[in-house]
């Protein structure tokens, strides 16, 4: 190779290398670490005869660490204060590989993309009301609280995402994941783990429910153990170790039209007992529509949980939905939401009573990430609640 050819070869290699480099760093280089997140302070008052009111607070710092243009490490902690309990949780801690044009690969603990509320909308500065819809308990991971169907799902595993733009307006959005999956609550017949002494400390598991054959409805403490059918609580994302060899497998498929319309179908299957016998399956349909200052969100969930009854396995069906409509008028944003979980029966008895709630709220947006929310939640089966919440996204 003569000198001229060598120079041309070196120039070619140099040009291509610099070309690739500038394609990656054509913009201002990314900041290696970014601190973001959100926080809120809430006041809640119940309207029953034993008037109760509480202040609660939460702080959820998000840490982003750019390992390179293609690798991002991100995690979110959540510190909460509620009554006498201070809660801490690791909402997610994941590494993202972003080197492909259409695909993403995520590993670690992530928000499970089941529906849209849990993964996207639940942060207090994004959620248009101070509370979650009845479908979802307030805890991240663990067992759904207060008869809710599911907690905000967060679990450890691997996830992949794919986006295909069909044309200038419509796109296809796919996510699939494999994660540790749920486990039966400690102390239940399907779990070998011992139940902690203090039920409050046992959170995020809720007490196991029992359905009896007597005339009484479900009881948590006053059951006749010989006649009762146990419906174990199912905990999600509560530990980095799995209680069985089965993994949760799930997927979400969505059709998105610009900022206007989104429809997502998602579902998962897992086995939650120690012996890999009991299934829990859930499906979700989420539809959102935005037009001008109007914002409509909705989600519906169908869930099937295997429960042992004697020598047989029977299925407990549960379902629920919410519809939410908001309209921005300048700095103000009125919101209304209807949530409902129909009654579910097991073994001829009511396992979970119907829950329904209508919520009216009005938000005042101090800044695009700082809403002041006031809302009234009418629960048709128990007392009503008033909330005032100041949220801050940073």
């Amino acid at each position, binding site marked *: 190779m003569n000198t*001229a050819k060598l*120079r*041309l070869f070196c*120039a*070619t290699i*140099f*040009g*291509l290398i*610099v*070309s690739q*480099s*500038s*394609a990656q760093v*054509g*913009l*201002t*280089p*990314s*900041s*290696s*670490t*970014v601190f*973001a997140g959100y926080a809120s302070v809430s006041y809640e008052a119940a309207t029953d005869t034993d008037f109760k009111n509480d202040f609660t607070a939460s702080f959820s710092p*998000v840490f*982003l660490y*750019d390992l390179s243009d293609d690798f*991002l490490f991100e995690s979110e902690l959540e510190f909460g204060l509620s009554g006498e309990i201070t809660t801490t949780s690791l909402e997610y801690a994941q590494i*993202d590989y*972003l*080197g*492909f*044009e*259409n695909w*993403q690969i*995520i590993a670690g603990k992530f928000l499970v993309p089941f529906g849209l509320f849990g993964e*996207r909308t639940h942060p207090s*500065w*994004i959620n248009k009301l101070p509370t979650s819809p009845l479908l979802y308990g307030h805890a991240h991971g663990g067992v759904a609280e207060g008869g809710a169907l599911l907690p905000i799902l967060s679990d450890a595993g691997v996830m992949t*995402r*794919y*986006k295909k*733009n069909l044309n200038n307006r419509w796109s296809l959005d796919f*996510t699939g994941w494999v994660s540790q999956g749920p486990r039966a609550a400690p102390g239940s017949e399907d779990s070998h783990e011992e139940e902690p002494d203090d039920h409050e400390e046992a959170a995020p598991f809720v007490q196991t429910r029992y359905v009896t054959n007597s005339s009484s409805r479900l009881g948590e403490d006053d059951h006749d153990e010989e006649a009762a059918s146990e419906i174990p609580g199912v905990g999600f994302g509560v530990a980095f170790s799995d209680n069985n060899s089965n993994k949760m497998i799930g997927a979400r498929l969505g059709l*998105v039209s*610009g*900022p206007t319309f*989104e429809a997502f179908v998602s579902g998962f299957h897992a086995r939650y007992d120690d012996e890999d016998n009991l299934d829990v399956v859930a499906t979700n349909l989420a539809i959102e529509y*935005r037009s001008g*200052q109007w914002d409509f969100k909705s989600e519906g969930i169908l869930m099937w949980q295997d429960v042992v009854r004697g020598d047989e396995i029977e299925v407990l069906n549960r379902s629920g939905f919410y519809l939410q409509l908001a309209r*921005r008028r*300048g*700095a103000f944003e009125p919101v209304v939401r209807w949530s409902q979980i129909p009654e579910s029966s097991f073994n001829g008895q009511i396992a979970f009573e119907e829950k329904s709630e209508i919520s009216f709220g009005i938000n005042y*947006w*101090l*800044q*695009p*990430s*700082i809403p002041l929310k006031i809302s009234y939640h009418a629960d048709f089966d128990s007392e009503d609640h008033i909330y005032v919440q100041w949220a801050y*996204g*940073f």
Partner: protein
Amino acid sequence: MKKTFLTLAILLIPALNAQSQDPSAISTGAELWAANCTRCHSARSPMERTASEWKTIVNHMRVRANLTKSEAFAISAYFDALAPKTASLDIQSEGRGIFVPTHTSFVPFIAHKQLQFASTKSVAEDHTTNATNESNE
């Protein structure tokens, strides 16, 4: 001579890749920003963060909103054009420090359109100014 031209052409490839200076990329980024970010939350002002911080945040949001790599790049180009390059008091005063509601803060899409127009206009003006200066020189 032929080899010299070839070498120069190869060395010019990086300049062709500098998409961040392309007004159409910024405009596309602004549209993608409005189309994707406002699906979940109010649009945040580019002035809240430095350009380098936005680049990391856009990567974070790329996962959440399931954006393609080129979409994330275009949105980063949009922030790169508008956000301050270094942290300063401007970020506090123009971004999130002052609790004085402004009309544009509350109407994300209008704000986006204004920013889009401003960014395209300012980039176009920069290009025009640079071209004029170069021709004068």
